[in-house]
């Protein structure tokens, strides 16, 4: 079979990959002399392995296929290569001959592979292809593994090693010149739409075939332009979005609504105008995969649903009272600079006027600081900072601005109506690690139900430790060393050092809500929070 024929037979099922199929077919053709190494690369979901396997099975070349992502260690990979080779050659029952099925090093693999390829029957002695899928994602791979595997083909003449990579290879990454590369580029707009139109259309009951065949191509193109193209989505996401949105898109037709403008029939433009909101809300949520999918069974409700979700508070977990209080203190400890502790938490200075002034001063300073940070960030993102500034210059005194000014007494420094860059107390300062003793001290300061006689009540430190351990298991509060790199601390490690620092690991809005439930106002304590 000629490479052209191979490509043609494959393109019926896997369209738009003609060139690659032809390249692969000519390189791997049983009649051409064996290639030692071949690199196939392209981002995920570009049909690399499928086309490769298709070519190999169409050409009837004996081959072994190993998914490297399923191998836990390099040794596992080597063993697996050996077995799948034996299996492909039909020598599975003779495994004891080849190192007893064990293979711990690439050099052993070379010897064993050579042996078992040499043991083939005379008429089968042709090309043998070994495909290593996603080999660049191999876990625990030694740095020389790739180049060593690439050499296998040179040592064993009849073997061809195909390395499938999902990242773009660096030049000469195999330490070997002139290795042929076949690239699988991402699908272009035209190709993607073509592929999707070739696959069967999602079925919608009560929809006339004629309407759907007329509207669907436009719909697919619109989806690509609005959602898939800009986000570099793959074909599977493209397909799933189309399948999810199509029934909603044609819902007006199915429900028998009369088209606007006195027309008797719905066409694409009218449907699009009708469904503007659909693209805004559903489209964006369609891009984000959620573990629990939102219910799309009732199309009439869905248009209102996204709004309801954004307004409803996210479900708060139910933590016991004491743990909530500890979490709140941990948050405060993380977000207050340590040198301001005496000003913010000391009970001796809490009522005096000067202390209040000092506190207000520091809060304002921190707030300005954080705003400056937020604005820098906004400017860096080239975000809506410019329109907001324009608005601020010509602020008129209206009722709403007045009430805002009352709500935030330092209206001169803060943006009217709360600038877009500041969403809540969470953005004020990033969480900083704190020692355990500081948490205990702050806990005593913020406790809304302090014991009546603090001298005679027992210390609560020991109870705090117990609850803190639970919070740590939930990863709401984490040891600061583990905060930087999760992989460095195993989850089993629970030893706490004397000077060990901790850090809170959740957002402030969330803790604010929780703390309100037990009667603590976070903003009251927080530097820069409430003013």
């Amino acid at each position: 079979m000629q490479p052209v024929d191979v490509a043609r037979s494959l393109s019926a099922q896997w369209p738009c990959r003609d060139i690659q199929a032809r390249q692969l077919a000519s390189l791997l053709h049983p009649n051409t002399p064996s290639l030692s190494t071949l690199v196939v690369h392209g981002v995920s979901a570009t049909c690399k392995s499928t086309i490769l396997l298709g070519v190999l099975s169409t050409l009837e070349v004996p081959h072994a296929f190993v998914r490297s992502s399923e191998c836990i260690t390099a040794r596992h990979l080597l063993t697996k290569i050996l077995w799948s080779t034996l299996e492909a050659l039909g020598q599975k029952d003779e495994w004891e001959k080849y190192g007893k099925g064990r293979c711990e090093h690439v050099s052993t693999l070379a010897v064993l592979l050579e042996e078992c390829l040499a043991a083939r029957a005379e008429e089968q002695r042709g090309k043998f292809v070994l495909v290593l899928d996603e080999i660049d994602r191999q876990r625990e791979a030694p740095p020389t593994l790739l180049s060593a595997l690439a050499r296998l083909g040179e040592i064993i003449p009849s073997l061809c090693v195909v390395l499938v990579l999902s990242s773009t290879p660096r030049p000469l990454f195999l330490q070997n010149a002139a290795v042929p590369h076949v690239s699988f580029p991402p699908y272009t707009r035209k190709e993607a739409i073509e592929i999707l139109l070739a696959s069967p259309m999602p079925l919608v009951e009560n929809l006339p075939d004629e309407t759907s065949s007329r509207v669907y191509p436009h719909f697919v193109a619109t989806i690509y332009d609005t959602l898939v193209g800009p986000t570099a989505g793959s074909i599977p996401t493209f397909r799933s979005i189309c399948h999810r949105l199509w029934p909603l898109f044609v819902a007006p037709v199915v429900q028998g609504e009369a088209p606007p403008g006195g027309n008797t029939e719905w066409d694409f433009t009218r449907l699009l105008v009708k469904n503007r909101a659909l693209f805004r809300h559903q489209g964006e949520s369609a891009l984000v995969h959620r573990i629990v999918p939102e219910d799309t069974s009732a199309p009439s409700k869905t248009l209102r649903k996204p709004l309801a979700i954004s307004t409803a508070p996210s479900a708060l977990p139910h933590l016991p009272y004491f743990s909530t209080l500890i979490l709140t203190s941990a948050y405060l400890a993380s977000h207050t600079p340590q040198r301001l502790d005496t000003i913010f938490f000391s009970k001796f200075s809490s009522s005096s006027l000067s202390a209040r002034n000092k506190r207000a001063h520091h809060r304002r300073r921190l707030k300005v600081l954080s705003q400056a940070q937020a604005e820098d960030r906004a400017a860096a993102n080239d975000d809506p900072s410019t329109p907001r500034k324009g608005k601020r210059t010509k602020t008129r005194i209206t009722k709403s601005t007045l009430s805002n000014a009352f709500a935030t007494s330092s209206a001169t420094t803060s943006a009217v109506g709360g600038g877009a860059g500041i969403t809540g107390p969470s953005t004020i300062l990033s969480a900083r690690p704190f020692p355990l003793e500081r948490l205990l001290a702050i806990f005593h300061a913020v406790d809304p139900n302090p014991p009546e006689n603090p001298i005679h009540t027992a210390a609560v430190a020991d109870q705090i430790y117990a609850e803190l351990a639970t919070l740590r298991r939930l990863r709401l509060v984490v040891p600061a060393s583990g905060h930087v790199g999760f992989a460095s601390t195993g989850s089993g490690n629970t030893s706490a050092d004397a000077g060990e620092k901790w850090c809170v690991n959740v957002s402030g809005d969330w803790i604010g809500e929780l703390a309100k439930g037990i009667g603590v106002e976070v903003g009251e304590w927080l530097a820069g929070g409430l003013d």
Partner: protein
Amino acid sequence: MDPEGLEDALDLSRDRSQNHGVYIYQPAKPGKATGERPSKRRKVSSTDHRGQKSDVKCFVPLLNGEENAESSQLRHETYKQLWSAQEHKIQAILEDVDAGVLADVLSFVRENSPETCNGCIPTGLVTVGSNVSSLSRLLSRLNDQLLASGEGGVVVLESGDAPNLKSSLKNIIRAAITNTEGNDGYQKFLTDRAGPRLLGYDLDLLNDYVQRKGTKKLVLALRDSEAFDPGLLMDLLSLFNSWLDRIPFTVLLGISTSVELFEGRLPRACVSLLQGKHFEVQEAGNCVDRIYESLQTDPQGKLWLGRNVTSTLLEKTHDYFQTPEAFSRMVKYAYMSHFFANPLAVLLGNPAPATLSHPRLCEAIRNLPSFRMFCEDLLEAGSPDDVRNLLENDEYLLQEALSHVSAGQQSMQQIFQAVLVIHACIQHTQQGSKKSNVSDLSVRALSGELNDSQVADDMLATVRTFDSEKLGLLLESLPKTLPADLALEDIRTDFATLVDANAEFEPLRSEYNINSSVVKTTVVQQRILLSKGKANLSEQDIEYTRIVDRLVGALQEYLTETLIQPQELFMHEAFLFDLRNPLKENFTPRPRFALERALANPFDYLISSTDASGARISAKQPATAILYQLYLESGALVNIHDLWQAFYGVFEGDQGNTCDDRMIMSLFYSALSDLKSFGMVKNSRKKTDHLAKSAWMGL
């Protein structure tokens, strides 16, 4: 004397025992004495035997050791009998609580496959809140069901079992195979294969197993998903996803915070591998309330937990992470300490008179605060002969005590009946989500405050305003077990006839209803007077008002009669356990407090050779304690030389010029290293010759 007074007495006695000094606990070394061959099998059988033996006399005789053996035996038996009954009830409740979620999860596992989830791993997210233990109960029952139907099994993985990818895979495979084959089966499975021996973490093993057993559903449950390392979770899930075409995985994730938070922490790539459903397990609080209700309101109850114990128990559940199991353990401890330490508990076990006839026991009864109250009441009632009899005739006393125990038990049962009645009524009268539950009501009832409380008053006032529809519902929901002299049946029949006769009218209203009163406006001397008056009531409404009045009156009477103060009952010490202290002390250990106290006041624990009342710091104390007290006096940064000078000064002041410089220096060093190992000081980075304080006392 009230319970607090009793506790004080206990505290005092404890304090006295502290003067004995400290005891060092040295556990007997288990297992092999030298030269003896250890044998695992023999050990198991022998410990069983010993366990039975020690069971016989595990309760020591009380009353200064003069209690007879039968009594202590009887106490033990009564305890076992009582607790086993309660434990059954608790188990039944726990199972019942999970039943709904279990059915949901089971049907989810059965119905979902990768095909129905768009090629993702079918995932059940189970939010358990603070009710952490419920998931393991649920999973073991799910496992039983799946095993019984031969569909597969459940593999539970905890964060502790998963330090890295290799060992977590190994654990998963081993658990999946041992689940059905047992441990030997797993070893056999590893060795008896056609091909070469596979690595322990190779999912090919699991694949083989699944093929061989025909498993349709392999549920992998991560009990505490938040505690898993996110990177590891990602690796595991992507592996499962790639094997999904060969091994039918279903993943169950236990989440203690919220789904959003959990999802937000996972990498996007990981989230896109999962799809499924969200399940919610009931809160621990509800579960505990139900357990408490069933324990206390049992119509055959013998022993009750008093107000102090109840409030300690409930506080523990509401304020801390606590499982229902832990709650029931605490209750068990309370029961146990009652029967273990209270000689009067023997009266609960229907004792034979012979076992009881013990002068010491009678003496104990005569010393009870409730006995004194009882006698005073008798004297006031004018029967001094009875009192004399009680004081002098042991037999008469025991007879009275026994009869009062059972009478007291009855009135306790009635108290909780009344609590249930109020609870049933409140379901109708209180609007909104914040309803008082049985535990809150019980706490009030146990302190004798429920009858005059706001809750009861509000309830009765609301009942008055009910129209006939609501009243009908209320009457139906009242328990049938109320005493007959309430005449509730009569009220019911009268009500039914009245409603039947007036079926065509609107619902009947009593005169207390807002709709039945009108506001009159009169102008008197240019002032407007508003006066409320009753609207003209129809015949039926007047009749209906009469019924409502009868009902409210009957309820009021019933409540005043039954809701008495339990502490006023004679012999309440025998059937009401209300000591806060053993429970609170034992379930909240305070190591840090003890450590600080030992260092700051070492003679609280150690025997002092001289009178310790003088100077606070003396050379007689251990060196570490001296240094710690000096350390307490310093600021956040301490100069080591100053510390040494002060330390030396303590010894110098005590021993004069004879003290040995080098000796004290070595003491100082060892004390300092002790403090360092406690984590109380560390070297300061700011000043090289200073120490930084890292722990403060009394936090």
